């Protein structure tokens, strides 16, 4: 009886704390930056979520994916995760740690600004990153392509 009571109490507590509404801003202010050797023409939010959470490791042609992002503490990084991936920044950080320390994925490369991000993506085979459309003035080294999110 005591055991049953504990089960019921724990379940009720879990369910009662689970009723919340959330908003999803449209993913329209970012472009995806991809190494020019990657054969990809379009990406969806769904694709990006699986790539940036390190759950998918391969491009269609079998090239290993290398994720490149801004530093976790930078506001554009958090904004990209929330508005495009539709995830919480702490959730993504936690997924990265789990994937890396179970041998399931390579850790993303994190850089300080968009110029370094473009340079890193251009110099890394299979690399993918993001850039805010308003920051497109950052130099393109000719080794990357920009893709709209559909």
């Amino acid at each position, binding site marked *: 009886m005591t*055991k049953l009571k*504990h*089960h019921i109490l*724990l*379940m009720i*507590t*879990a369910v009662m*704390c*689970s009723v*919340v509404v*959330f908003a999803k801003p449209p993913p329209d202010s970012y472009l995806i930056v991809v190494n020019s050797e990657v054969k990809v023409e379009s990406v969806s939010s*769904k*694709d990006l*979520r*699986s790539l940036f*959470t390190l*759950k*998918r*490791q*391969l491009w*269609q042609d*079998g*090239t*290993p994916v290398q994720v490149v992002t801004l*530093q*976790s*503490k930078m506001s554009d990084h958090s904004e990209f995760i929330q508005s495009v991936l*539709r*995830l*919480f*920044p*702490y*959730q993504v950080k*936690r997924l990265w*740690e*789990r994937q*890396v*320390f*179970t*041998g*399931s994925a*390579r*850790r993303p*490369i994190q850089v300080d600004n968009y110029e370094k991000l473009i340079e890193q993506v251009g110099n890394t*085979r299979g690399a993918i990153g993001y850039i805010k459309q308003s920051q497109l003035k950052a130099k393109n080294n000719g080794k990357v392509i920009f893709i709209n999110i559909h």
Partner: protein
Amino acid sequence: MARSFLLTFISSFSIASTSVLGGQITTEGVVSIGYLAPSANTFVNEEAGKDAILSENVFRITYTADSRVALSGQLVYREAGDNYENELRVDFLQLDFRFTWLEDSEQTFTVGRFKSRQGLYNESRDVPFTRPSVLLPQSVYLDTTRNFYLSTDGFRLQSFHSLEESDLTFGYSVGKSVLDDQFSSVTLAKTATGDWKSENNHYMDARWESQNWTLGVSFADVSLDYQPAPGAYIPVDINGMTIPIPMVYGAFDATFQTYSLQYRQANWEITFEKIERNFDTEGFLASSNRAKSDLDGQYVQFRYFFSESLTGLIRYDVMDFSIYQNPSSPPLNDDASQAKDTTIGLLWNISDSWQFSVEQHFIKGGAWIPPISKTTVGDSFKSNWSLLAAQISYKF
């Protein structure tokens, strides 16, 4: 000695990436030091109430070939009191082959030693940066038997599927459990020395994850054989007298079912997990001896993110051990068979590389205390006890 060697070895590295033979080698790791201070009992050390240094050190190296193949290995050194084996361990050493058989999916075939998937935290439980607290909820992630379920030698097939607003991962694996030398002392008794052998065990797991929800389920079907060493025995209390009962060959079949539910918002998350472990044992004390037992548990945990760096935790955790269908077994008393733990804790992410965690456990009952199959508790046992745990960790 081993710890000094490991710390010296890994401190010469930092998160690094090097090109070799057309592929990429990446290395990184974690060093941590902590403190476990129980107010009573022998959960941490053989001496009741004695505190212990907690040290967890991890070093990972991965080689990703310029193709669908990756080779990863991880060494772990963990020290947490004398009830646990303090040795350098190969945590995993696995070869992954990745394929895409279906649209919006990716399949991985893994061979070698890989992490055992159970619940939300087991596969990375030795890495402080992946845990919500210094000690995981013991009802589901019992430290006393932790090494039994850390890694598997065999193969695994995993399939990941990307859905519209969520994703689904499921896996199946077959292999032998990696057992350590202290498995007898944490399950039977310190004097029940002998050799354990794992059969080929079967594991299945599935996890569905969206922005707000994680739902998970994992099953394990495990069989182990025990061959006693000469002179091995279990001390049994009969009418106030301690009688040594010699050990004989034994075997157990067990099934584990773990159910996980997590809901999250930007500033908080709530987690509920439940485990049912069913054991069917034969032998050990007498060749005709058969027993069935259950070791069940569940917890509910609430975390609040005060800021990006500071997280508060409150958790209520319940564990029950019961033996039945064995008239020869003495009845379990509540102190030996149950544990209820209320935990409050704080986790401070000082930077991307540093983390500090502190928590206080208020515990009633002794079900966590090794050996798990005990029927009574010793004279020094205190039913109400507490445990303070603190840990600082650095990722490199």
